[in-house]
């Protein structure tokens, strides 16, 4: 009586067994080891503080807006993190001010929490201590070699955010043509630009993938017209591990996503 259920055409898909152990293998559940690798110089991305010229010492806390954990921040999405199976950050976007050291701690802690979870458990997690109190949740998805983690407060719908992650990844997939971890490694600025069209200042800006892609394309065109050079490099294509490959597509929310993932499935 209220309205024609316009979105009800979509049925929640039954869960199918995941294909291919190679792509969706659970992460090595050795958090301690992973952490050690990441921090202790042995080929990791961690840094040895003493060798790096930096302004101000790491002991001195940054003045100003260092929010203590638990205090309400101003954003609904507190942070968006992407890191790989070894905890190396591929993108970090904080919508609340934290010092670089805290940011790294948060990334490590989040990786620690997320990486020890099995593949087929729920995608919600409480207990990130650094990035806020009881109101906050980590909502993540694991795609091939990458974790996409959103830290949100209670004003966001959990399932909505899960879909948003899916939209994000599929948008990346469209913009990079079969996105893989290497795209994210070498074009982190582009990933930032795409993200900026979806989430702004911690609030969801746009959820329609086509709209996002249109804007990104227009901006790329503008960029191209400014400099003749094309920035996109294709030499990594052959070594790619596709992020979306073998991923089960499930949506809790939006119909446009469903149709998009339909296309995608056909494409794969």
């Amino acid at each position, binding site marked *: 009586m209220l309205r024609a259920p316009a979105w009800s055409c979509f049925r929640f898909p039954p869960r199918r067994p995941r294909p291919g152990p190679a792509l969706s293998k659970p992460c090595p559940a050795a958090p301690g080891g992973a952490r050690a690798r990441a921090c202790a110089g042995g080929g990791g991305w961690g840094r040895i503080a003493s060798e790096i010229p930096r302004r101000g010492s790491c002991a001195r806390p940054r003045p100003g807006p260092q929010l203590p954990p638990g205090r309400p921040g101003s954003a609904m999405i507190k942070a968006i993190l992407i890191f790989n199976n070894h905890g190396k950050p591929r993108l970090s976007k904080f919508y609340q001010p934290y010092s670089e050291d805290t940011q790294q701690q948060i990334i490590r802690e989040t990786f620690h929490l997320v990486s020890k979870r099995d593949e087929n458990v729920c995608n919600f997690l*409480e207990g990130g201590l650094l990035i806020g109190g009881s109101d906050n949740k980590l909502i993540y998805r694991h795609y091939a070699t990458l974790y996409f983690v959103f830290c949100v407060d209670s004003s966001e719908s959990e399932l*909505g955010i899960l879909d948003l992650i899916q939209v994000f990844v599929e948008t990346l997939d469209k913009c990079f043509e079969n996105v893989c971890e290497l795209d994210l490694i070498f074009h982190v*600025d582009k990933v*930032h630009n795409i993200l900026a069209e979806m989430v702004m*200042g911690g609030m969801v800006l746009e959820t329609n993938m086509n709209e996002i892609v249109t804007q990104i394309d227009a901006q790329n065109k503008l960029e191209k017209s400014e400099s003749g050079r094309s920035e996109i490099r294709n030499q990594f294509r052959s070594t790619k591990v596709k992020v979306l490959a073998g991923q089960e597509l499930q949506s809790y929310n939006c119909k446009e996503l469903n149709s998009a993932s339909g296309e995608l499935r056909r494409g794969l």
Partner: protein
Amino acid sequence: MALKMVKGSIDRMFDKNLQDLVRGIRNHKEDEAKYISQCIDEIKQELKQDNIAVKANAVCKLTYLQMLGYDISWAAFNIIEVMSASKFTFKRIGYLAASQCFHEGTDVIMLTTNQIRKDLSSPSQYDTGVALTGLSCFVTPDLARDLANDIMTLMSHTKPYIRKKAVLIMYKVFLKYPESLRPAFPRLKEKLEDPDPGVQSAAVNVICELARRNPKNYLSLAPLFFKLMTSSTNNWVLIKIIKLFGALTPLEPRLGKKLIEPLTNLIHSTSAMSLLYECVNTVIAVLISLSSGMPNHSASIQLCVQKLRILIEDSDQNLKYLGLLAMSKILRTHPKSVQAHKDLVLQCLDDKDESIRLRALDLLYGMVSKKNLMEIVKKLMTHVDKAEGTTYRDELLTKIIDICSQSNYQHITNFEWYISILVELTRLEGTRHGHLIAAQMLDVAIRVKAIRRFAVSQMSTLLDSAHLVASSTQRSSICEVLYAAAWICGEFSEHLQEPQQTLEAMLRPKVTTLPGHIQAVYVQNVVKLYAAILQQKEQAADAQAAQEVTQLLVERLPQFVQSADLEAQERASCILQLVKHVQKLQARDVPVAEEVSALFAGELNPVAPKAQKKVPVPEGLDLDAWINEPLSDSESEDEKPKAIFHDEEPRHAKQRPPEADEQELARRREARKQEQANNPFYIKSSPSPQKRYQDAPGVDHIPVVQIDLSVPLKVPGMPMSDQYVKLEEERRHRQRLEKDKRKRKKRERERRGARRHTSLHTESDEDITPAQRVDIVTEEMPENALPSDEDDKDPNDPYRALDIDLDKPLADSEKLPVQKHRDTETSKSPERQDVTVVEKKSKKPKRKEKKQKEKEREKKKKKEAEKGVDLDFWLSTTPPAATPAPEEPGVNAAVTAPKEERRGEEQDAGEDAEQDLEKKPSEQKKKKHKKDKGERSKDKKRPKKRAPPREGDAEPVQNGALREEPLPPMSSYSLLAENSYIKMTYDVQGSLQKDSQVTVSMVLENQSSSFLKNMELNVLDSLNARLARPEGSSVHDGVPVPFQLPPGISNEAQFVFTIQSIVTAQKLKGTLSFIAKNDEGSTHEKLDFKLHFTCTSYLVTTPCYSDAFAKLLESGDLSMSSVKVDGISMSFQNLLAKICFHHHFSVVERVDSCASMYSRSIQGHHVCLLVKKGEKSVSVDGKCSDSTLLSNVLEEMKETLAKC
């Protein structure tokens, strides 16, 4: 050549772009840090170049390094340079870097203001977009203030891409610069109906977030959101709105009722899981907010629980998790409905997913009862054994303790079992919750007297076992239980079987490895044990053994004297000297046991955690007075109350007479009171009302009265928790047989009467009463403990600043700061300037303008009033949210008439302004003109209504009369009672949704100079009418008024009454009791009143169409009655307005001096009236489905008319 080299180097640098940097880092895995420091040096070189492309490239690389954890704030200025590049490519890089590393503390941020403003007004939408995106990440209060106006303009940009970003960023601006909220809000509201779905969604997003923090200011938007909810198909928007309604319903229960139906429909119809989940969540919130109003809400709860069960049973772990999460919300209010799904919850406890297990644990809290507690805890204990991660195990541990200790150990029938559980939990290694277990042990041992013997025996084994002491070296806190064990063994040493052995255990050298505070407790309790042993030995006349014990202490205590912990050391050396002294006395054969045990005489009682805070200040004790004149300023004020209450028992605190210089003291007192009154953190206390009746003013003690309640429970003695479960069945059976015997026992015990405990028999729901008596001594609270203070809102909450009333019309001063050139800033605002210019010309226009302003103000007022009416009306109509457009009778005779009049005025206000340029029309002409306008607009407004009255009829004349003789202000509130303190007025209102309930709105006005608080309303219920009281209170309890009244303030409270029959009027006697507090002290006052429920108050203004009205009259099943009143001079128009207003009727049709009116009672009786006006009289003929009701209503109407 040289040029070539330079060029080459530039190229090389230029070539090292982000990709090269990344590749370089990947290739230098061995010495990454060194490589990066090299790169940073290069970047610094690049930043020094003039070429903006090189700079942008450098900044881009810095952004990457920032992600890896390098501080790049040193490059802030360069980032700003890149931000101000003209090319979009570079600008974007600059803004990205800024958004990653700028924050409120960045000092150069103030340099960006003009750049950002320029970008915001750039013709390229992407320049604007990128500036908005960047700004959203680093907006500061200064930037917000300076740019608010620019952003507001962007909210109506032609491109939806910009609009949505501008709308979204407004939220950030509001947070940083709350003053901007009111000026910007109207435009934000407009955006809710923007044609672009993205902009609409952004506006919903922002308003929802604002409303979530301060919901009450956004209630008036509910109709708009309701419309959106029923019309939008965007699930993202729907989810936000539904979440918002969840926040609004607690404030407005009527809203909840309106929502239930559309939400249930959505639940049934949607297939989007996210939407379904949010709907269920909001329905839960609605049901929580409606305490008992809905007769059929159990159906909704059932629906929610069913849907949640489907979610929980789903194979998708996410849905399972959320289902459990929502279920726990239902649990809080409707535990019964959830308990039905116990099987499901227990099943989830075995889930492999930890998050799900944790959520299931939350639910368990509400699932336990006396019957199944042991079983559930047993299950949890097996989980504890299996659990791998310490976090989950710790969570299990706290949950076990939580569910066992909830509501004063309500579900525990056997405390021996509980103690064994606690002891078993101590075997957990590496837990963080040792102190929790310890606290439980102490609590149970102190509060459950009968368990002490058993507890002591268990604790002494704990002290004996070595593993706990050993664990102290590890990082776990399990050794904390030794603190409890030592204290219990010492304090209740009379129950110890082998005190000597325990004493030796506590004096083992290994003990010194324990943390200091535990050692201190050991030392203290060693002496308690020692005292007990001495007594024992002396009674047995075993002087030899007594001396041996003393010797043992003298030998072992020095190990504590060397303790690193100050407290342990201090206590040990004190006690060592004491023991040495005792040894000397023993050598002379002096009996010492009595004296030593006198050290620990007396029993300790549990005191409620807040008891100290709640001790009322006794009459005559002035905490603010100096005890001694202060020596220096450094003396802290806070110390004084502490000094007074320093003694362990407050009752011993002596009042110290205030000294010296009364005047000075009075002055200071006043000042301090002022300060305290203004200090939100100061917990204001006041002497209790009863205090007044106490005789002497110089009370020399603070009275403390025990409110000891003991709950009789019985348990058989059996160790090991597992065995208890098996025994439980037998035991209960046996108990049933023993019941009579037990009763006798109980009585006996009561006669013996414990010194301070009076037993109170609570009937256990399942009638499980054990064989051994266990008291739970409740914690002591001082007499007249002040009611618990509500937690104040965190003053640091950034959202507090946004608690702004948005319905209030904008004042002229409320404008966003607009950038001006410095020279114009000195002059006044342009509007003022105009005024002065005009003033010079002539005086008349000025008056005009004033008038206009007045009108505007009125208009605003009107609008506000309308809004209130709108919301109420919207809420009171039945679901299909039909806008009350074409015919809105009811209030209309009273309200719409002046409204229309004013609308006319508004219109010609505009025209007047135009005419201003020509010549000013005469006053009379204008009036007529106005009248016509009024007519016209009226006709326009009600096109569907009966044919407009013919010209020359009575109508225009009366309309004119109305203008000359405006309606007297009418108030439906009538006086209830009044005394020197308080004035009560009230109004009774029914609603069609609740057929047997009326709401009494009571305005309480403080007429005195005292502060009125603790107001409580009580009414003597009659058979027919009852006051709805909160659940669980008896019919004699009063209903507290939810506010306090400072002098001169009035506030409105609402009470719901349940009415059986509405055909006759009735009166209820009642009392309002309150405490009046002023400088002299406080008094307990009360005011009696009689609530009069007239039959009119059961009528609800209901619109009725004339054809339906005619049918109703024709149907013939209405009884008829009539009444006539003489001597009425009032105009017919006003008369009708009065009837409409006071008697809740609506005009159906009006012809000349004859009108038909309609109303409906809350129980559905139709009441139809035909009102005819003669020369000086009015006759009212009524028809109603209930003759008694009709005659009563007419009687009441007669009274009203007689006053006209």
